[in-house]
Structures are given as C-alpha cells and as structure tokens.
C-alpha cells in the first residue's frame, strides 16, 4: 500500500520520496513494532518543495 499525502501548505499531491527508520519516541510506538524503530514515509511537494512525513500505515 503506497502512502499518500497532500501538501499541508498548498494542497498539491506530494511525492513519496523516502522511507526512513527512526527510533520510537513513546512506549506505545516501541510496542507497536518489532523492527527496533518505526518507518516513516517522507514526502516532498513538487509545487512548493515542502517536506512532510507520516508513519507508514503498513509498518505496525
């Protein structure tokens, strides 16, 4: 499942440019993965360049 995100600045459909592992920041996050971290999808806006991210829905 490919994550999707609209730019919070200009509303343009963002480009999913990277998946990055990061360390969990809470007990809940740590318990929700067996990977040693959570995977965030990182997006860039092709219109204004803004960067945004979300946890991959299929990571847990």
């Amino acid at each position, binding site marked *: 499942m490919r994550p999707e995100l609209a730019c919070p600045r200009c509303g343009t459909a963002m480009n999913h*440019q990277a998946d*990055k592992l990061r360390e969990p920041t809470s007990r809940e996050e740590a318990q929700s993965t067996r990977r040693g971290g959570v995977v*965030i999808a990182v997006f*860039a806006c092709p219109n204004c*360049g803004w*960067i945004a991210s979300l946890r991959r829905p299929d990571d847990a």
Partner: protein
Amino acid sequence: MAADVVRPLSIPVILGTQRTGRMSEHAARAVYVELEKRPGIETELIDAATLPIPSDEAGEAAKDPAFAETMNRADAIVLVAPEYNRGYPGLLKHVLDTNLAEYIHKAAGVVGVSAGIFGGARMIENLLPVLRELGLVTIFWDVNVNNARTRFDETGVLVDDSFLAVGKFLDELVWMAETLRHGREQITIGGPA
C-alpha cells in the same frame, strides 16, 4: 519543472559551536558571503548558540519551529564546526538531532576549522555517519580551514584562502542540491504506482 526554475535554492549555513573566541564564526561568515554572491541561491547564517533549543530535551520536544521551518525549506546545508579533540561540538549534534524528515535527501557540505594543520578533517570523518543517519547526502568536497588563527585578520576577514577551494566546494554542493531537489519532488521511492 517550472517550480524548480522559479524557486531559488535555499542553502543556509549553520555555525555549530558556542565557544567564546570561536574562529569558526569567521569561517562561517566567509562561506556565507561566497554563497550570497551566487545567483539563484537564498542563504542565511544560523548561529547554533542562539537557537532556543533546550539542552534537556530531544527530537520533537526540543524542536525550534523557526529552525525546523528553515531546514524544511532548505535544499542543502553547510555545517561549519571546529574540531575538539577529534570530535564535533556536542551543541551541533544536539541541534541537528531536533529534526529528521526535514533533512532527508538533501545535500550537506562540511567546513572544518582547526588551529592546527588538519583543518578539522578528523571532525568531519566523525560527523559523516551522523549526517548519513539523518538522511542527508554528503558531498565529496570539504573545506578544511587549518591554521585558523593566521587565516583571518583581527576583524575576522579571511586574508589567506590558500588551499580552501571554497568555490569547488560550493559548485559541488549546488549541483547536489539541484539534483536532489529534482529527485525529492519528481521521483517516487519504489517506482511509479
């Protein structure tokens, strides 16, 4: 591609030490001045010592919104730091650690500063794996400001630029910044849906 043409590249310079009498401030200003001369580039000089980032928090909890926005907007960053006992300043690491997604697939160039002959080369070697983990893409040119106490005059002006190759460093950084902007905004990880 039209947006690429209209939007200038954003390349802030981060001064990564807070010590009194820091020669890195002069080096940072010299690189900042060279960046400012280049058309199509927006830059600013960020003094890590002045950022309102608490020392007892990390990540999102320590994030300064203005710094995070600058990193979000950046296409590349220049890090200017001295070598302290072969390492990088703890302040620089602490400041960098407050962001993550904002750095990914963006270019990073490092300017090392030292009073001795190596120009921060060993600090840079230690910093590279940190930058990689943050998602930054390092370039292969560094600026090594060695013998820092004799390269600047009393007012902090660079009077000896021998072997610094700041122009080559910035050429490579700008190329990488342009290339990565295209990749971030146009090329989807894993290929088209």
